[in-house]
Each structure stands twice: as C-alpha cells, then as structure tokens.
C-alpha cells in the first residue's frame, strides 16, 4: 500500500498526541501501513502477551515509553489489528486494499480521494515531531 505524506503525517499525529517515541512509532506505522512483521517485542505487545513482551524488550525501552504506546494502542489502533498472535498474523496477511480500508475507516489515514485532492491542491502539511 502506498500512502501520501498527508496520510503519513496524519498517522504520525496520533503518535505525537500520545508522546510515542520514534523508535516505537516507526515499527507500528510500518506494521499498520505495509503489514511488516513488527518484531518479537512489538508482536508480543500487540498480542497482549506481557511475559513475552518483557522478556523480549530491549534494555533501553522505558516504562514511560511503554505506557505512551499502550495509551496510543487503546485510543487509536483498530481492533482488527491487536489482541492476539492470530490477529497480528492475520493483519500481516491482509492485502494492501484490506489494510487501507480498515485504516481509512478508523480515520488513521486519508481516503485515496482525499489524498488526490490534497495533492492537487498542494496543501501544506507538517511532519509531527517525535522524540
């Protein structure tokens, strides 16, 4: 799935709102948009597996950053995307069209129609700052 800078910034705005660090935001964005496997730690987080998540966590991950990520997941993430290992595997196997439809329904990205009009109007957009 290819998205424009408008949709990308819209998605990253949600990370910015929850103060999710860039190290966490990029794998989540790649998982949502492209269906890339997010790695052992994030897969465990998305699968709601506390023990596996903590055991696979990098030493530099802080509790504060994790709390921000969990807040973002609860507030912004579509229910089709997290909850168990099966759900995560399903999301990765979805077609780009299916993923786009769900992300559009949850307002995480713009519709293709909106993206076309924003591009043609040359609307300005600012990349959100993540720490």
């Amino acid at each position: 799935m290819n998205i424009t800078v408008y949709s990308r910034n819209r998605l990253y705005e949600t990370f910015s709102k929850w103060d999710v660090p860039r190290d966490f935001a990029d794998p989540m964005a790649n998982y949502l948009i492209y269906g890339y496997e997010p790695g052992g730690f994030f897969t465990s987080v998305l699968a709601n597996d506390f023990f596996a998540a903590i055991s696979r966590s990098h030493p530099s991950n802080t509790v504060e950053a994790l709390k921000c990520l969990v807040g973002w997941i609860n507030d912004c993430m579509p229910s089709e995307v997290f909850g168990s290992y099966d759900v995560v595997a399903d999301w990765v196997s979805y077609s780009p069209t299916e993923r786009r439809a769900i992300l559009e329904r949850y307002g995480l990205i713009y519709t293709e129609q909106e993206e076309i009009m924003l591009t043609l109007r040359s609307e300005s957009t600012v990349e959100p700052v993540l720490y």
Partner: protein
Amino acid sequence: MTEHQRLIALLKGPDWYAHESGKDLLAVLNQGKRKRYKSLNSTADKHLSTIMDLFDKEQSVRILKTWLTTYSLPLDPNRLKTFDQLHEQIGEFIIDNTATIKSY
C-alpha cells in the same frame, strides 16, 4: 466536443486548456445563482471527460492542479460523476508521485 474543438485543444496544449476551462468554471461559479455549484460540477464533469480523452496523465494532473491552485475552484469529488474514472486512470499516479506534484 466537435472535431474542430478537439483539434484546437490538442494544438494549443494543456496549458491553454487549463486556463480556458478554469475561466469557464469560474464564470459558472460567479453566476450568483443558487444552483451554481450544481452547474459547476456538471461543467467540471464535461471538462474532465475532455481532459481524460485528450491528454495524458501528466498533462491531466497539470490541468487539475491549475484549476485547484490558480483558480481555487471548490470542486467536491463526491459530487463529480467523472471523479471515479479519474481516480481509476490517474489516482495511483498522483499518490505515487505526491512529493513531485505537490512541489512543482
């Protein structure tokens, strides 16, 4: 569109067509009637069909960009009958080349 008009549009090129159709749409918009938006959309549909028929992807984008930036036309894709066709023909091209189209 007559064969003569078609030939003129092709000879004068996309820039000429962008400004002629842009002015035409502005004239419709400035009629001051309640139905002006309806007329605007039907006129835009007519021009969009012509554009997709006559010009290639890059030229079509150039014309649409002129409409929306130079003339600031309030086009609503939900009310345009030809927008689905446009989306099908050049939507992917626009989304793949957003940065270039946005900045030129």
